[in-house]
Every structure is written in structure tokens, then in C-alpha cells.
């Protein structure tokens, strides 16, 4: 009895619905390596994220090296217990122009590498 009612209601309701379902009907799409492609990109993304922090630290360190050394030199004038070896550190090993150029190149290289890794 119940199934009869359901069938009647179903027939009443869904003549158009069935026609639409038939129009939209298609076989399930085979995976054909789709999942593997997605997972490859996901794994690459995980690696990129792991690289971002060390890369940012390296670039930040390179950029901050000279100002930090200058600050140390400035503080060392006040003789506040800074180790002797730090005070006499050869800051002038690299000129500021070289450091700036190296930092920019490093920044661009890392940005490009991250972009490439994320794309493929």
C-alpha cells in the first residue's frame, strides 16, 4: 500500500524530473590518473610550505645582517659586556652594496623557485 502511494506520488511529481535526469545522465567519469595528479600537486604544496619559512628566515637574515652588526657596533661603544670577538667582527668583509645585491638575487631566486614548485 505504502509503496503504491510512493509510486503514485513519484509519478505525479517527477515526469519532468525524470526527463531532466535522463538528459543529464552520464556514466561515472573514470579516474584515469586524476587522483594521482591532484596528490602530486598537494605533495608539492606541502614541500613549498615547508620551504617558505626557512627561505624567509634566510632572506631576512641576509637583509638584517648589516643593520644588526651596525647596532652591535653602536652598543659596543658603551662597553656593556659584549664579547670581544663580536665587537671586532669583520663587518666590512662584504660591502653594503654587495649584500644588497645578493639579497635581491636571493629573494628573486627563492620567489621564482616557489612559484615553479607550486605550478607543476
Amino acid at each position, binding site marked *: 500500500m505504502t509503496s503504491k502511494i510512493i509510486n503514485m506520488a513519484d509519478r505525479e511529481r517527477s515526469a519532468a524530473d525524470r526527463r531532466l535526469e535522463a538528459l543529464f545522465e552520464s556514466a561515472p567519469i573514470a579516474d584515469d590518473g*586524476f587522483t594521482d595528479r591532484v596528490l602530486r600537486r598537494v605533495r608539492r604544496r606541502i614541500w613549498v610550505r615547508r620551504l617558505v619559512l626557512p627561505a624567509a628566515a634566510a632572506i631576512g637574515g641576509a637583509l638584517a645582517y648589516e643593520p644588526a652588526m651596525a647596532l652591535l657596533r653602536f652598543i659596543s661603544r658603551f662597553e656593556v659586556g659584549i664579547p670581544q670577538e663580536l665587537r671586532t667582527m669583520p663587518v666590512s668583509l662584504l660591502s653594503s652594496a654587495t649584500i644588497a645585491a645578493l639579497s635581491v638575487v636571493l629573494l628573486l631566486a627563492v620567489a621564482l623557485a616557489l612559484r615553479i614548485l607550486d605550478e607543476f
Partner: protein
Amino acid sequence: MAIHGTRLITLSTTTPEPPDHALVARVVAANDALAFGELVRRHQSRVRNFLRHLSGDHATADDLAQDTFLHAWDKLSTYSARGSFIGWLLRVAYTTFLQSRRRAKRYAQILRAAGDDAHAASQGYTRSDDEAPDLDRLLAALTEEEQAIFIMAYACGLSHREIGSAMLMPIGTVKSVIYRGKQKIRTQFDIKDHQHG
């Protein structure tokens, strides 16, 4: 006794598949790529089917489907297990589709401004020839939102509740959108409602 033994063997050999929300929890807790792979394997067919109908181009749809799953990977922590996972996933797919279309339109505008009309015309999504022309004409009669809802309902088999959670609208609105869409179709095509048999 023998029956009991057989039952035990049967039970022990069939391992039930973990539900979607359990796999999502594994991905969120431990970045478990294998659990995510299982989710992709389960749902790729419906997501790709949805995007194929929406974009009308298989290659574009598959690219968008990959992007959809990558966005899903990024946003998985925002999925609340209250709604169905496929509903949530199709919302991500629809957003990805809209974003991609906006980008394509902007690019076409730039090309047109630069005088490259031929290339600009090719930037829009066009349906491939192997699709049923009936379906093309039918979808063309609907707005973008109605198209998405119709595809979810009739191609992906989502319930009104699932469509509501995918499109962020109440069930009543989903029903009225479907009703309105069917009215439009009825006026343009020979699809009769309340027809017996």
C-alpha cells in the same frame, strides 16, 4: 557453529570504508595526503561531471577540478561535518568556476582593448561538440545560478538540503529556484510536468 564461524570470517574480511568526515579529520589533524587521496578518488567523478556541465569543456573542467581539490586541501579545516562533504566540495568547485570565469572575462577585455579580438573571443568557455545539443539549449535558458543548481540536482544527484548547503541558501529557496527553472524550460521546451507515466 559452522555458520557462526563463516559469519566471523565474513565480518573480519570486510573492512568498512571510513566515512568522509573521518578522512577529513585525518587530513586536518596530520596533513594526511593518503586520506585526502581517498576523498579525491571518491568524489572526483561528481566534481568533474559538475564542472563539465558548467563549463561545457572537458579539458577546462578537469583543470578546474584539480584547482578545486587544491582549494579544498587548503580550506579543509573550515568544513563542518554538519553538511555533506560532497555539498561542501561542490561549493568550492562552483566558487573556483566563478573565479576562473571572472579571470577569463577580464583577460578577454584586456585582449579586446589591445585589439586582439580573435584571441579574446577564444577566452570564453565554449561547449564541446560531443555534448548533447538538447542539454546545451536547456542550460542556456537558465541563469548561472540556476544552471549550477540544476546540475547539482539532476547530474550529481544531490538532495535539496545538500544543494542548500552548497549554494549557501535555504532549502525553500533551492526548491523555488528549481521550480522557476522548470517553468522557464517548460515555456521553451516540450517538457511537461504532472504527466503520468
